[in-house]
Every structure is written in C-alpha cells, then in structure tokens.
C-alpha cells in the first residue's frame, strides 16, 4: 500500500496503492502459482473474517508469547517510498504511520493476533479490553501498574483524558474522529474548542477519571465497538506533561518498546530501544532488535530490486507498507529462494463501480452494468492475481461476516462480465437511460479503469461518456451530492474489523451529505434500521444483522457493483525472522520481527 498519506481513510490510500502498482508496468502474471496462492488467500480469509473477540485481564498480561527461534540484537532496515505525514498519535490515521505507531505508542487497548488469522482485542495500557455496563453505553478501563513513558513518568488517567481531549483542538485535523463524535456529536470541536489545554474539560458525565487509574466513557447509545476503536493508532496516549501541541508531530514521546533517536522528516527515522517499556505489561509487542532504521524515498521498484538481490544491508530489510512492484512479480515468484521471503494476504479494501442513485434510478440499468463490468481486465491492471481478486460481493475477505460464496451476480463464474445477461436486462430500457457518464481519475490507474469500464459497458449496449477528474480531488468531486456523474470507481476499507466501519459510512442514508463516503447516496429505511440494530449488538451477534444488511443492499438496492478485492504482496530480507502477514494491518507484522544472525 502506498502511503501516501491522505487523511481519511485508509481507503483513500487504496486508489493510490493501486495506482502505484499500475504505474510501474503492465506485466501479466503468467506465473504458475498465482491461482494456488489465491486459493490459499481465500482459505486464510475464512479465518480472518471471524468476529473479533474481547479478551480478559489474563490475556492482557505481558509478556507477549515468544516468537519461535527469536534472538536479540541488530537493527532492521525499513524501506518506504514516501515519508510519514505525521507522528503525533492524534494525527495518525493512515497505514504507514500506523505501522510505526505500533513500535512507539500504546493505547488503552490493542489488537492481538495468533498468526492463523484470528484477531482479538486485549488491554494494552488497560488491564483488559474494557468493561461495559448500562447496556453498552458506559465503558470502564483500568490502567495497569508499571506503564510509563520514555522519560519514566507513569501513565495516569489524566494522560488518557488529555489524549482524548486534545483531539478536539483545531491543530489535530488528520486523525480519526469516531470517539470525539460519539462523545460530543458531529460538531464535537465546539464542545471543547481549546482541546482541554485550558481549564475547561469534558464533563464527568461524558468522560470521567475518578482516580489515577480509572477512565470511564459515557455514551448516549451503546458502543460495542469501543475496544476496537481505542486500538486505533490515532487514540494512543500522549502524556499530558510532554505535549508540545503542533511541535509534538516531530518529536512525540514514546510509550512502546522503541523511541525516536533521530527523525529527519521525509528522509530518515531511527528508532532505538525504550528502556522504560516493561514487557511484563505488554501482551503484544516484543523488543528483539536493538532498533529500526527507516529510509524514506526508496521507490517500490528499488525496494523490490534491493530485496531480490538480498545483498548487504538488504538482508536485514523489510518493506513497511510498500509492495512488490508489479513488473518484478515474476522475478519474485519465479525464484523459490526469493518467493519464500514474501508475505501475502488480502487488504481490507473492496473496489466497486459505484452508482449515483440520484441519476441511475432504474435498477435494471444498475444490474445490467453490474453484470457487464469486467473485473478480470481491471485486476490485470493491478498486477494480476498478486494485486487483487475478483470481488463477488461488497464485504472484503478481512471483514467479519464475509461470505466467500455469496455471489448474487455470478461474478466468480464470469469474471470478465456476463454480457448476455446485461443485454437481456437492457431489452426494455429506453435509450436515454443507456447513456452513462463515467468519472475516472486523471492518472495512469484511472486511464486503465476508463478503458476497461468503457469497453465492457459499450459491448453491453451502453452509450458511455467518460469524464476525466483530477486524481487528487477525485473523492471530493464524486463526493458532491450534485455531482454530474453516473458511475465512478471507489474503494473503502474497514478501520477495524467490523462491518460498522464499512456499512455505516458507505451505505447509511443518514450519511448522505456533501463529502460523505456514501457516494451512491443510498437512503433506504430498511438498511438504516438494520444498521441501527447492528450498531448496538455485540460483535458476534451483530454479524448476522450485518450479513442481512449486506444481502439486502446488494440484491435489492444494488448501489455499487463489486469489482475486486485488493491484495498485499511484500518482500523481506533473508536475515529477517518472525515475518508474518498481519490480519489487522494487512502488512508485515512489525511486532514479531527479529534478526536471525
């Protein structure tokens, strides 16, 4: 995944990531293992899509389980194309900074993985994943003993309060907004304009810290996903005494196993061990290596070449969020010695051809387009089977509730499109409704999308008008309610493993507004009712409700034609030990790494 660090939405990155694969070439995957790998990925996805479990105090106690064969010492070299936009935890929302945050910062909770695709939430700074009461409207967390920042100062409930309140300040504008919105509403900044830096604080009826160890959240509705929300890097702790406001972005204080030794923005980052981190308090992280050297500005092409050659420092190197460059995929999969040093798996993103329901009102037309689109040619532009897989529905394989066989439009059987079915549906459709305006990005990826969509729809009998849109402001343009387009390719991925972070923002009628990710403008009472029901259910119970909503949306409304799931394919050096795919981040799991010699 490219980094590029647009705010919002890890999903925003998907287009850029896809672009980065496409930019570098149009090689076709002829490799023999791609089909086998895809099946393996799908099998692993079945495990990944289980509901996340919330763990108790026993599971939240450190140290983390030893990685087999792990040894201490050495420095891991990290290659990354773009520099980090932010290092202030409150400003972190995207994957590259999220990976770094995992090494530096701790929050109340964290995700724990077992390496088999199962994900759970454990207490990180908190003793457990949280205790809910009052029907899920109140959540209580208790801080562990012995948790300190890099200066040796203990983390207290005041630090947690400060961490949350500073998110209301105007200088924090790039991080997640879930928690603030839940606590104070959509206009949350007005509730605490100075971000808690003055005398005013959130009232105890919203956020209470009755003693140094206890934090209590009060919501106006049940928030069963809170333990997962708090595991986001954007909610990791900023100790109050160390907060330097805007300056904190360049010199944040660590609470995790590593701390910053030197940071040259956009150029390099050196991490060394944080001797104040106590492994007995941390059930997830390790501190095997002495440090990490991040080298920014290394293109994915160069990363791949260096790691294939496996010479010198590259033996100790990893890709942070970069992927194997598409033109070199064959060099990687064709050499068993290189291929065994790879990480593969699904990313949480689903790419869809989204319909503007205000313009494409006839469901027959939407269904015909859904049948006609050619996922196969679009995926070829993403690097083939290593860049993406055919998406038969709107849930990513990493999402709880994902059903691999749920394929209402027969996409798996006809990945290149079912033109006969599309033509049949269009028989009685007036010519005026067959004119489709397709908006595409003015970059190389967008050009490929344009060709594939135009070709498929024209063959089905549509009159396609393609409109170029500035790639940088693409989502802003298609996010306008009165946008003049009928269809556009968009992508979305979960912020944590819950359909609540997909179905709600993308398909909830309450979200229809300028700039909202509900790009289809779907506003259906049944969908809204199901969303409301699922949001207050415990994750396992909610899974069935989300599935029902998913099926209704795709079959009865069809606001977006599923196209492809994005995939991750990374390479690492031969001296790296413990490398594994992280289900939660969909990149290499930085918590497990060591150097073999």
């Amino acid at each position: 995944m490219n980094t590029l660090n647009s705010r919002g939405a890890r999903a925003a990155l998907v287009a850029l990531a896809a672009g980065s694969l496409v930019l570098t070439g149009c090689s076709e995957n002829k490799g023999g293992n791609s089909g086998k790998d895809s099946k393996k990925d799908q099998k692993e996805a079945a495990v990944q899509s289980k509901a996340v479990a919330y763990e108790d105090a026993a599971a939240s106690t450190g140290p983390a389980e030893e990685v087999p064969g792990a040894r201490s010492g050495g420095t891991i070299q990290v290659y990354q194309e773009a520099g980090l936009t932010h290092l202030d935890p409150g400003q972190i929302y995207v994957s590259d900074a999220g990976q770094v945050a995992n090494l530096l910062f701790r929050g109340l909770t964290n995700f724990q993985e077992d390496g088999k695709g199962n994900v759970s939430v454990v207490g990180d700074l908190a003793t457990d994943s949280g205790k809910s009461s009052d029907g899920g409207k109140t959540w209580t967390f208790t801080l562990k003993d012995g948790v300190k920042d890099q200066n040796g100062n203990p983390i207290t409930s005041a630090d947690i309060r400060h961490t949350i309140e500073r998110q209301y300040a105007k200088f924090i504008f790039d991080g997640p907004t879930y928690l603030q919105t839940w606590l104070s509403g959509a206009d949350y900044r007005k509730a605490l304009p100075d971000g808690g830096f003055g005398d005013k604080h959130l009232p105890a009826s919203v956020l209470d810290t009755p003693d140094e160890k206890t934090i209590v959240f009060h919501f106006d509705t049940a928030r069963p996903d809170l333990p997962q929300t708090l595991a986001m890097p954007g909610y990791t702790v900023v100790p109050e005494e160390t907060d330097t406001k805007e300056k904190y972005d360049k010199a944040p204080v660590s609470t995790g196993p590593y701390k910053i030794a030197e940071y040259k923005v956009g150029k390099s980052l050196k991490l060394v061990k944080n001797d104040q981190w106590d492994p007995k308090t941390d059930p997830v992280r390790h501190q095997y290596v002495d440090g990490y050297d991040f080298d920014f500005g290394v293109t994915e092409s160069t990363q791949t070449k260096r790691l294939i050659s496996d010479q010198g420092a590259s033996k100790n190197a990893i890709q942070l969020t970069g992927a194997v460059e598409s033109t070199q995929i064959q060099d990687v999969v064709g050499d068993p010695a290189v291929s065994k040093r790879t990480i593969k798996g699904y990313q949480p993103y689903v790419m869809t051809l989204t319909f503007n329901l205000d313009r494409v009102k006839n469901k027959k037309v939407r269904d015909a387009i859904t049948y006609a689109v050619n996922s196969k040619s679009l995926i070829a532009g993403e690097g083939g089977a290593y860049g993406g897989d055919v998406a038969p529905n709107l849930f990513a394989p990493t999402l709880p509730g994902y059903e691999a066989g749920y394929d209402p439009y027969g996409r798996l059987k006809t990945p290149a499109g079912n033109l006969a079915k599309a033509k049949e549906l269009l028989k009685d459709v007036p010519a005026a409704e067959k004119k489709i305006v397709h908006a595409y990005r003015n970059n190389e990826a967008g050009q490929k999308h344009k060709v594939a969509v135009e070709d498929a729809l024209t063959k089905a009998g549509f009159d396609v008008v393609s409109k170029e849109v500035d790639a940088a402001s693409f989502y802003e343009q298609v996010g306008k309610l009165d946008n003049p387009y009928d269809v556009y390719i968009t992508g979305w991925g979960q912020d944590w493993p819950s359909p609540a972070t997909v179905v709600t923002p993308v398909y909830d009628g309450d979200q229809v507004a300028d700039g909202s990710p509900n790009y289809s403008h779907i506003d259906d009472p049944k969908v809204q009712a199901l969303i409301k029901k699922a949001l207050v259910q415990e994750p396992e119970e909610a899974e069935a409700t989300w599935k029902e909503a998913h099926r209704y949306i795709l079959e009865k409304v069809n606001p977006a034609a599923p196209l492809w799931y994005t995939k991750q394919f990374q390479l690492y050096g031969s001296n790296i030990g413990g490398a594994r795919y992280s289900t939660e981040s969909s990149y290499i799991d930085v918590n497990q790494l060591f150097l073999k010699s």
Partner: protein
Amino acid sequence: MLQFIIRRTVGAAVTLFLIGAATFFLFVAAPSDYASLSCGKDCSPQRLEDIREALGLNLPLAQQFWDFMSGIVVGRDFPGEHCPAPCLGQSFYSSDLVWDTIKDRFPLTLSLTVGATVVFLVLGLGAGMLAAFRRGSPVDKVATGASMVLSSFQIYFLGPIALMIFVYGTGIMEDPKYVPLTEDPVGWLVGLSIPMVVMATIFTAQYTRMARSSLIEQLAEDHVRTARAKGMSQRYVFFRYAWRGSLIPIVTILGIDLSSLLGGAVVTELTFSLQGIGRLAVDGAVHKDLPLTMGVMLVGAFAILILNILTDIAYAWIDPRVRLS
C-alpha cells in the same frame, strides 16, 4: 564592477519575485489543493474547512502570497514555531520549515553536482582536447565515436544497469547513499560514486564533442595561424591562444548545466533513491505542497541567477575584450 553587482542584484531580486509570483498563481490555479488531497474520502465540508484553516489556505490569495514573500525577508510565525528569515514557509505535508529541509537536502545535490562536474570536465575536456589536437587520427575517431554513443544514453537507462551490475548483481558496492563529506570523506566518495560516474558519463560525452568542435574552430582562427607562423611551439599556441578562446561556449553551457543540476538532478535522485533537491521538487508537486514547491523553485532560480553572474565574470576573465560594465 560595483555598478555591475548592484545592477545584477536588483535584477535578480525582481526575477525571483516574478518567478515566485508565477509559481504561486500557477499552483493555486490547479483544480485541487493540499487540503483536498489530505482530506481524503471522508471529507465533509467542515473537515475541509478545518484543514484549510489550519494550513492558512482560507486566507485571501494575495495575503497568502504576501505572507510567503515577506517571510523571506523578515521571517514568519507559525503555530508553535518561529521561522526566521529567509523563511520559505512551512511544508503542508511534513510541517517542517522549508528552508531547513532545503538546507538538509542541498549538500547531497551539491555533492552530486560537484563530483560529477569534476569527472566530466576532466574527462570530457581532456578527450575533446586530445581529439582536436589529433584531428583525424584514430584517437579522434574513438573519442568522437564514443561520445556519440554515450551522449545518446540517459541516466534512467545507465543508472539501473550500473546498479544491476555493481550492487544487485555482484554486490561489489552498497546501495548509493549520502554521507556528509565532513564526517567521512571516503564514505562520501564511495556512497555517491555510482551516481556521480553515471551522471558524469552522460555529460562527458557532451563536453568531449563540445570541446573538440570549439577547439577545432579556434585552431583555424587567424590569430592562431599567425602565432604558429611566428614560430611559437604548437603546444604553446594550443594552450595560450586556442584553448582559452574555446572556453567561451564551454563556460556558457557549463553555467546552464550547473544551475540545472543544483536546481535538482531529479532523474538521478529518483534512479538512485537519493534525497536531494530534485526529489523535494517532485514531492512538492505530488503532494500539492505549495510552500515546498515555492521554496525549491526559488532556490533553483537563485542558483541559476548566481551562476549567470559567475558566467559573466568568467567571460571577462577569459576574454579581456568583454567588460562587465
């Protein structure tokens, strides 16, 4: 001389102002800005406004431009940070002061430029002189032929080949990297040797051809023939009269080449994953980072102006008939 310096300084200031204005207004005329890019998908109008306000993009354009340009002279204040003169603003993307970033990246670009220039001047001018001196000989033919072939190569072609052979293939050398000359002179030379040599290879070919043709032209001049007729040695005439006269076009082109290299050897830096001024220029454009783009453009323009002045001074030194006034 004083009049020359005053005139050129005033001219340079006006030129920089105009370049700054052109860059600024062309940039803001683009259909999107950093706020749109940063706002991402979940981009409500309020969120977009928050970002614009945080970056100062909500202010009138004229005020934004004035704040930027006046900051160069008197400095500026940003939230939590003072930016002393010459302040080139604060990067939208990294929130680093642009002047600090340029100061951090410039040594690499300067190292590449100086290293490659030394190599291509020595080799290119040497080969050109030899070819002109031995015109029509096998030496001339080899030099001319080689320069023809090499000048048709590009850095994005030679660079990856050099990396494939010396780094990824044989492992004889490490990946190119920058180590400050003051910290480790050997590390500096070794770390940048591949990009320097690749850059120099392209330029060597050009300078060989240029030096040869310029020298041949000078050797055919009346004053050179007269000097020879007066019994001066061939070597003396070559260096005393022909060589000096041939330097004018070479210095002109060298001034242009150096200024473009100091403004950022974009392809070289991208090919070898080095973080110099060229890379900054690309980052600025990709991220719609107005202050960074403005800063890099102005520094590049400044380099061109300084080198133009140095070129004019060099003309006067080479040919006393040229007067700075």
